[in-house]
């Protein structure tokens, strides 16, 4: 029986879609059968982040409206045989789908896949209600910024109100150099404010930009973000993985200036 995970944040632009893509890809690399569902109807993006935008024929709304079978709408990933994407519709709006229909869809997929991951739209309106309808657990993504953390708190409250109690936090785009200087809240600060358990810290890494450009999630690669995402996947699967040392390998000039400081 598969697990339904919703990736949500409240605030837009904190990395929900990137997290969904990397989480799904990482779980597939670990041999799990995974479906990613883009629930942001009218503003689809997960397909481009996954590099599958040219394969879309049917979408989530087509499945809900019975224009096609689920199997026809699922797009197989380029690199992983056991990873599938159900893209969102670009031409409809969020009212085209109801929470009951989403729950039914999730329950159908549960029989055949290990993980069903919902990429939630920003905001707390119907799109959010649709995305969380069938979820067993939630991953709340935030960045160490006041606006993102405040919205994350609101989301955590709404998840509780909807009886989703298995909720974990991902702190995204952390810059350990700024944390050290006292110019950015640390992941501990964020956990302290939000009061839920941490499941991952992802450093601010420019490789994320290039991987998104190419439509190839970087989970499992050597860079820090790649390792961090892989660790999140393993923790989602229940493994106990120690946290990475996120101190960025110093560049040549930083090393040089460090020597002079001595």
């Amino acid at each position, binding site marked *: 029986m598969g697990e339904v995970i919703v990736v949500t944040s409240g605030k837009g632009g904190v990395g929900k879609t990137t997290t969904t893509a990397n989480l799904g890809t990482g779980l597939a690399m670990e041999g799990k059968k995974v479906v990613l569902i883009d629930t942001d109807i009218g503003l689809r993006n997960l397909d481009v982040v996954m*590099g599958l*935008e*040219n*394969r879309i*024929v049917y979408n989530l709304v087509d499945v809900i409206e019975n224009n096609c079978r689920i199997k026809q709408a699922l797009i197989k990933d*380029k690199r992983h045989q056991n990873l599938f994407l159900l893209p969102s519709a*670009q031409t409809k709006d969020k009212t085209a789908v109801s929470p009951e229909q989403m729950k039914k869809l999730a329950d159908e997929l549960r029989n055949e896949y290990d993980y069903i991951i919902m990429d939630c739209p920003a905001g707390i309106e119907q799109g959010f209600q649709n995305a969380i309808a069938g979820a067993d657990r939630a991953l709340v993504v935030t960045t160490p910024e006041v606006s993102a953390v405040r919205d994350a708190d609101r989301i955590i409250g709404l998840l509780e109100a909807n009886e989703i109690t298995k909720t974990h936090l991902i702190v995204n785009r952390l810059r350990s150099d700024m944390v050290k200087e006292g110019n950015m809240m640390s992941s501990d600060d964020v956990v302290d404010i939000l009061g839920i358990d941490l499941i991952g810290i992802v450093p601010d890494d420019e490789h994320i930009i290039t991987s998104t*450009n*190419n*439509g190839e999630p970087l989970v499992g690669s050597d860079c820090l973000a790649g390792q961090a995402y892989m660790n999140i996947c393993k923790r989602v699967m229940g493994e106990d993985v120690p946290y990475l040392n996120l101190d960025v390998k110093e560049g040549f000039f930083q090393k040089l200036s460090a020597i002079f400081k001595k």
Partner: protein
Amino acid sequence: MKESVVIKGTKSGIILVLDDKLPYEQLKEAVADKFHSSDEFLGNVSKAISFQGRELTDEQQEEIISIIHENCHLNIVCITIDDPEKEADFSRAIENKYAVQDANTGQFFKGTLRSGQVLDVETSIIVIGDVKVGAKVVSKGNVIILGTLEGTVYAGSTGNTNAFVIALDMNPMQIKIADVIARAPDKPARLKKRHKPETKIAFLEDENIYIEPLDKDVMNDIKL
């Protein structure tokens, strides 16, 4: 006594049951009488026809259809062969007939189609503007884009395999003609920039979609 001419109606066609004993000249009169008297009942609609009970030559079939046209308002669009799957044949034949007609008429659309917008038309369509990534043009006939095609086009959406797509700058996400889908090749973003604008045509041949520069030879092969 058995009637020499019987009209059986189905959903999208009629079956004309003819007496095979009657001399042909008499039969023609009987057909004229029958359709003349049934005019009101048959109405002004388009139907496919099939013949039963009597072998007719092609000329005779044509002649009978013209008699029908003279005597009532029925519009016989085609003849189907009498077989057990008549009903399916009738509707398919009529649909194709209209698809071909629609494909050969067209309309214009001026403006840029952006992500999320869908232009869905019954006829062929000429877009004066660009079709951006995420936008979609669906036509039962042909699609001509006087601009850049970066989005998705479905031509011959009801199954017309002769439908084609032309764009001044052909760089589509996806093209579907009849039931065949072609998608853009997977290449890293940095290579996509090398694309140079060129007028191209996409057409269907042997279950494959080909995209070629629009030259004289290709143009001569276009079937309308």
